[in-house]
């Protein structure tokens, strides 16, 4: 397989170089490099096990890569704790939902704002004063997201009881509540029917238009990727095989081979 390395983009938001992640003898990521520009919707595609979610886990500090650099606006992310990376502005949604099931939708969204808030154990116990003011300010910010994503009917429902499509949207809402600079979306339409997928696409476009947020999208739904993404990175067995605009990727012989097997 031929490796592709992109020419460095001028002043990217996120720059990943030579990223290598191994689990024992298995190489999940092998020298992957890419850059995401400000406000760009960047998609990562590849067959199952290609290493898409591993990239996310490296980006937000869940895994520590053996080699390579990850820089967000010039600051290195490698070796930092997930909570630090979250505070630096990287938000994420999970493939299999990462909502807190016993907490209500509002509480889940408020947790997104955790790193923007200050109230500690003592201030929280003595509610009157700072804690109360902070709750109200951030509750108002959360309400804007509820409105943007049309989650009004579900405010007080425990996240564990939300219908699947709504839960996915709520998780997007929680990530937005973090006021991130970079949003990682891990299969936002997995398991959705056509209508729900189109709804989600609409929300993603709206988020992009309103907030101008850079996003990395991992997704199997090719029509969604090709419609939404500015640029696409194709992975196969942990190796970056192609990077480019959707139309280029669709006709890239290596990508076709990775998906359909052997040269047709």
């Amino acid at each position: 397989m031929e490796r592709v390395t992109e020419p460095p983009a001028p002043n990217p938001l996120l720059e990943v170089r030579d990223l290598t992640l191994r689990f024992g003898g298995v190489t999940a990521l092998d020298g992957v490099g890419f850059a995401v520009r400000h406000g760009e919707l960047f998609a990562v595609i590849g067959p199952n096990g290609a290493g898409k979610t591993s990239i996310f886990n490296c980006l937000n500090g869940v895994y520590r890569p053996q080699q390579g650099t990850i820089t967000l606006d010039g600051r290195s992310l490698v070796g930092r704790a997930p909570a630090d990376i979250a505070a630096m502005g990287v938000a994420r949604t999970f493939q299999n939902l990462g909502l807190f099931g016993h907490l209500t939708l509002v509480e889940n969204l408020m947790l997104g704002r955790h790193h923007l808030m200050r109230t500690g154990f003592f201030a929280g116990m003595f509610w009157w004063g700072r804690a109360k003011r902070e709750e109200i300010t951030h509750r108002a910010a959360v309400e804007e997201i509820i409105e943007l994503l049309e989650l009004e009917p579900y405010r007080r429902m425990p996240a564990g009881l939300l219908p699947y499509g709504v839960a996915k949207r709520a998780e997007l809402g929680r990530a937005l509540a973090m006021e991130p600079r970079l949003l990682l979306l891990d299969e936002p339409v997995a398991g959705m029917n056509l209508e729900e997928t189109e709804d989600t696409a609409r929300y993603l476009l709206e988020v992009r238009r309103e907030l101008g947020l850079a996003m990395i999208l991992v997704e199997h739904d090719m029509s969604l990727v090709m419609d939404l993404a500015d640029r696409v990175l194709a992975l196969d067995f942990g190796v970056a095989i192609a990077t480019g605009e959707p139309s280029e990727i669709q006709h890239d012989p290596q990508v076709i081979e990775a998906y359909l097997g052997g040269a047709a």
Partner: protein
Amino acid sequence: MAGPHRNLVRGYADELRLFGTPLSRAGLVALVAVFLLLPTVLHDDFWLSVLIYVGITAIGAIGLNLLTGYCGQISLGHAFFIGAGAYVAARVGGDTGLPLPLWLLAAALIGAVLGGLIGPFALRLRGHYLAIVTLGLIFIGEHLWRNLTPVTGGNSGTSVRAEPAIGPLDFGDLTLFGESYSRNQGWFWLVWGLVALVALLAKNLVRTRPGRALQAVRDRDQAAEVIGVRAGRYKIGAFMLSSAIASAAGALFGSYQQFVSPDEWNLLLSIQYIAIVIVGGLGTVFGSVLGAIFVGALPAIIDRYSEVIPGVRTSVGGEGFISVFALNQALFGVLIVLFLVLEPRGLAGIWLRTKAYFKAWPFSY
């Protein structure tokens, strides 16, 4: 009956009020009235002392519920911190004659430090493994309490002379507006006043940023990290807070009982607390108090009425097939099993369902 417009929420401040509806405010007034009047109506020292022990237990149970119910960290070591608090009361309150706020605070502080030492284990272990480590605490404690004679009085125990006095207000010998009250009446007001205070602080905690973080750690600790919650910090914080509250409860317990011995802080006491938070409802402040009333009062009531309960042996070699002690132990076990199987949300869950039923009435959903 108030119309729905009375409950209209006009802003976030309205929504965040603890007693936001007329009905809940009426309930609050009723509770305060019961609190103020009960000791003047109920003179029976047996019942008053049961209620005082229940109140102290409720405080300790709120502590355990913050740790186990809200943060999801199981602990069998709660009795260790209760015991530690009782000895702090004996040495700091009793020997130096400091007033109640100071020895209570000292107990909480030392409890927090001890809890902070255990906390790091919680970062490495979870579930059964954490239960075993905290179980070890009980046995280490038992050894310490028996051998740290200058502090604990060794095997023979120690008297606790910590006075329940705040300035001129001595709850052990209360005189208000020319009227003097008995020790148990004074203690009732003191303890249940503190229950209300601790419950309020705990409720405030769980509805603000730190409390949400605890619950996020309980539900999914890795997702919590990824959205910016430092799970380790909150686990240790939960341990410290829970043991601080337990120690304060222990200090009150020692001061009320006036004498403590090292075999009181055993595994059974820890299990009693676990039974309370399960029966009351994990992850509810209110449930901790309900559970304490239900489970905490049982042993005393069984003890009092053991003569009329069939099959209970009241003296060694007497008739009946089960001793009072064994019956209590068995009951805790049965209660835990029944609630876990039939009503995992505990008494608080039953209460919420009843409330929802009447809210929706006459519709059944």
